[in-house]
């Protein structure tokens, strides 16, 4: 009986890590996707860590940088042909204080949406709609590029160390607490004319979607771009 329970726990642990998921939201505001559009891809903000047996996390610069590169390239190739032109834009490259304010406002709006539209309790006035915007000042984000859209991507996650995997198996046997790590991607597409977030997605990576590898990043980006309007 005890052994069966252990096996079950291990299976549950495996299933938990095996779950990949996406949660897309499409604006309920007036929106028609432009053809021949230009999209700015802001370099994804990526931070990946190792989850150690003790439960402590340690940032891995190599994984983070590889993840950032892989996702950028995967986004480029996935969007190539969908939108007519793609420009990769360095997140830290801001030309004016107003542009900097718009980027920070985008962060604040995305955080708010994460808090109230994705997690926690919804705001009653936002229950039946997805209406998130940084306002018409967004045009300024296009700069001289003539871009119509901007895509912001945030990635955070950790991967179990070998020690953690072993510890989890042992913990499963004991019925103790387990930690599995995981990686999340959060993306928003902004219409630079209205400032509206016309599409957003919160994706959890499935086991085959390891952004540290090019194929994994391609698969993860394919999941991420579900219902992408362009």
């Amino acid at each position, binding site marked *: 009986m005890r052994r069966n329970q252990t096996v079950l726990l291990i299976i549950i642990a495996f299933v938990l890590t095996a779950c990949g998921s996406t949660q897309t939201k499409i604006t309920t505001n007036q929106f028609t996707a432009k053809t021949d559009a230009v999209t700015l891809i802001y370099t994804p903000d990526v*931070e990946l860590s190792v989850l150690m047996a003790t439960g402590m996390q340690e*940032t*891995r*610069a*190599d994984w983070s940088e590889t993840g950032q590169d892989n996702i950028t390239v995967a986004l480029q190739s996935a969007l190539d042909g969908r939108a007519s032109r793609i420009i990769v834009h360095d997140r830290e490259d801001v030309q004016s204080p107003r542009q900097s304010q718009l980027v920070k406002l985008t962060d604040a709006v995305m955080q708010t949406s994460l808090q109230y539209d994705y997690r926690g309790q919804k705001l009653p006035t936002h229950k039946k709609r997805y209406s998130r915007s940084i306002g018409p000042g967004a045009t300024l984000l296009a700069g001289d590029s003539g871009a119509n859209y901007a895509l912001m991507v945030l990635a955070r996650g950790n991967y179990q160390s070998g020690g953690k995997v072993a510890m989890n198996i042992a913990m499963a046997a004991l019925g103790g607490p387990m930690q599995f790590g995981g990686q999340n991607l959060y993306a928003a597409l902004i219409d630079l004319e209205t400032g509206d977030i016309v599409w957003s997605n919160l994706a959890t990576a499935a086991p085959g979607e390891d952004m540290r590898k090019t194929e994994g990043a391609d698969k993860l980006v394919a999941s991420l771009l579900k219902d992408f309007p362009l």
Partner: protein
Amino acid sequence: MKRALSLLAVFCLLAAPGTAQDRPDDMSTDEAGLWYKMDKYEQAIKNSGAVISDPELNNYVRRITCGVTGEEACSALRIYIIEEPIFNASMAPNGMMMVYSGLLLRAESEAQLACVLGHEYGHFEQKHSLQGWRKAKSSSNWMIGLQFAAALAGLPPEMGQAINQVGTLLFYRFNREQESEADQIGFSLTAKADYRADECAFVWKNLIAENENSTFRSKRRRGKWFNPYSTHPLPRDRIEELEALASSYPSGQVMGRATHIAAIQPFLQSWMEAELLARDFDSNIYLFEQLKLRGFPPGMADYFIGEAYRLRREEGDTARAFEMWEQAAEAKGAPADVHRALGEHYRKQGRNKAALAAYERYLVEAPNAEDRALIAAYIERLKRKIKT
């Protein structure tokens, strides 16, 4: 003897000109991870509303820093001055240095500032953050065993939290040794930059004196009692060590009192306002009195001493505040606000003519005051009262 030898070792180490800390080559290391994380943090600090961007003040702090570290090492450092009422500076493993307004306000001279900046640079050069992180990691390994034991005993996961704290305790004790090492490095760098390194001990003496005047028991006790959580060695021990160093090694000549006062004077008002936000009014009064003794405009110091009394609200503080404001109004360097404070005081006392005169003087001295409309309404009301 052992200590003397280790000090000697530190000096030999520092005899070679400082070199810039390079980015780690191997990106898979914990050190590279720390840099990556700190780079992100720095980006956020840089764009935050907390940084004082004034070029002259930044040049001043950079000049002292570079004097202490040497030009080459300094070229790799980024310095951010932050308005925060704490007596501290800090340095991250990626070469980001944060200097708080509370330190600039409390340092008596370039020499004292050099001591603290040299100390922080010592942490950086010796890669103390990295050592601390590694210590935390290795000291947490034995926690795995405890976590298993906890699981076996059927204890809830919250036990893990308590176990973690023990690990943190060990980590902090380790830090105390690093602090001593950084003190030694800071001392020798200060001396090498031709500053009066015997001033380093005064940084701590001043801090002890200020803490002893604190409103809060926790602060008054600091430095007197051993606290296992404190990240720094006892200030008294530090003073002893620094004085021992000062007596056995040649010090520089430069003090740089006047230049320090001149560099921070433009920010005095806003930094003293920031100090009041911490609401440690007894320590504020002590500090502001010290600032007056050090040659800052007495009108400014007295005004803020009055402000600290007003905010403290103890028996007799109203009279004390008034006395300080009256004194400030006639002294050099008083901010226009002192006349508003006096106007408020007279109005409460029913001394309408005196109140009117004070408010009017306030508007003359601060014609663009944000509360002009309100003061104008007071003036109108007072004029009507005086007439009737």
